[in-house]
């Protein structure tokens, strides 16, 4: 039996998408191993998060409602989560390996003397032995890992879990934990925070993405992709090569180090399909590739392929679709 604690982080009005994934993963693990899920939420509105965590599967939801925890500070969060991890008696701490999780996982594992396993997408539970599955080598392979210590900190890869809705009828207990973080723990000071110019549609939420790569050969070509994307009610994405070349801003990058997307339709134009790029579109439903090279690896991932120069295809395609759709 495993005792599972999930860090249920709040973002905006509710739990972060990573927190939901971590809770769903935790619940799945608990039902396989016969354990139970508890959660921890920090900050003045922790109780709201705790209720949501219960709806996502926690049976006990710990809170530390201290106002100091209103804004994220790595030291305060490491100290607070560590304290709950110890007090809860849990042996598995699950968190989303999102930006915050990348700050926390290694430090929490080292502080508690736990093993650490990151970018986890799944687990195996056979003959009482638990192992963790994660992609390795830029998504070219899977690795299955066992852990050697009594406790383990598990970082869940972002957007690797199927999102299921919460069940508001679930019941659980909310417990405010006796732990007081203090101001003197804070060592860093925020100088300024700058919100990036928001794309019209967040890549992560887009249902249709028209993405361009090095084959687009410059910013002008991206205008054509933009026209097609606008027509389809979608948005433009890019490969790292196109972002690095400065043709489009880096927040349009799709892939392992960019956005992980899950659109209904992903049109990859002039993108070769490196494993690091494909890592970002694992959950895309239909992938269309337009590429001059029939050997390009993108055709191994695409459902529909067009072997052609994109310049000869994109404009007529846009025209033809416009006739039907507008």
């Amino acid at each position, binding site marked *: 039996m495993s005792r599972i604690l999930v860090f249920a982080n709040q973002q905006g009005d509710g739990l972060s998408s990573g927190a939901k994934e971590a809770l769903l993963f935790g619940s799945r693990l608990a039902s396989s191993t016969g354990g139970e899920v508890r959660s921890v939420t920090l900050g003045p509105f922790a109780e709201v998060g705790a209720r949501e965590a219960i709806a996502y599967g926690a049976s006990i939801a710990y809170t530390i409602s201290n106002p100091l925890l209103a804004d994220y500070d790595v030291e305060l969060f490491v100290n607070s989560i560590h304290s709950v991890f110890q007090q809860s008696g849990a042996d598995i701490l699950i968190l989303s390996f999102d930006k915050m999780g990348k700050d926390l996982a290694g430090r929490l594992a080292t502080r508690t003397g736990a093993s650490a396993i990151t970018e986890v997408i799944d687990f195996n539970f056979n003959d009482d032995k638990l192992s963790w599955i994660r992609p390795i080598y830029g998504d070219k392979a899977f*690795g299955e890992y066992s852990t050697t210590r009594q406790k383990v900190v598990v970082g869940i890869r972002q957007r690797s879990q199927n999102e299921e809705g919460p069940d508001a009828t679930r019941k659980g207990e909310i417990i405010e934990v006796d732990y007081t973080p203090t101001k003197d723990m804070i060592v860093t000071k925020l100088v300024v925070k700058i919100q990036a110019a928001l794309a019209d549609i967040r890549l992560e939420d887009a249902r249709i993405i028209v993405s361009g790569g090095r084959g687009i050969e410059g910013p002008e070509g991206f205008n054509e992709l933009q026209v097609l994307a606008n027509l389809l009610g979608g948005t433009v994405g890019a490969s790292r090569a196109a972002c690095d070349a400065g043709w489009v801003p880096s927040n349009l990058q799709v892939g392992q180090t960019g956005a992980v997307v899950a659109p209904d339709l992903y049109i990859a134009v002039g993108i070769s399909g490196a494993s690091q790029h494909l890592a970002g579109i694992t959950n895309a439903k239909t992938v269309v590739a337009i590429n001059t090279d029939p050997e390009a690896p993108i055709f191994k991932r695409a459902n529909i392929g067009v072997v052609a120069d994109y310049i000869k295809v994109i404009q007529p395609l846009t025209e033809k679709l416009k006739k039907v759709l507008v």
Partner: protein
Amino acid sequence: MHIVVCLKQVIDPEITPKYFKIDPETNRPEISDTDLVLDSFAENALELAIQLRDKTPGATVTALCLGDEESEDVLRRALAFTANAAVRVWDEDWGNLDGQAVGHILAQTIASIGGAQIVLTGYQASDIEEGLVGPVMAEELGFPCMTHVSDLDVEEKSVKATIEVEGGYAVVSVPSPAVFTIISSETNVPRLPKVKDIRLARSKPIVLLESEDLTLDHERCQAGVKLERAYVMNREVACEILPGNDGNDLAGKLADRLLELKIF
């Protein structure tokens, strides 16, 4: 000011999947020596380290690598970038470490070479992508750690770090000593080393440290995770290649297929 940059040698991440195989005996990729490169985010960290040094009077850069003899290539590369010193740590027993054990050993190595004001790592190595070494070192050394850092600005007793956060970026003032894990950005694109510097780098010394030179915790030198099995993913999809060579004709066929999806 002493800047330590940690460099990992990894299997070339751009090897095409077609040629990528895992040896079932060792659970490791089948590779030849030419397939090994410096981790790309660690290379961004190296570039940043050199830039910081050149802006800060009296600063020095030490490149640090835990790895076997072969991994000296990445240290030679750092020397060609004009790093001031290179240190390799290695012990025969260290063939199967995980990020936590590497973090412990690197932290102890840094302590044994006189500490550092700034420690830089890549944010996630492109082989296993554990993303652990930086934060683990910080915890071991009692330093603060900022992840997802694109740029640094050294001040009197602190460092201003530009970090990528959810929805934008932030500038944070961090007291040194501190650990920073570096992402790629237009400010830290690795330079092309000068031919002269590449030549000079060949004859520069690389200091070798072994486990008995360090104060190590035996327990922490053991991996906390064990790779039981590795297998290549087969995500191949049967792709329907639309027939024809004429752009207009192909565009028509594609439009029809897209409309069949009924998602617009």
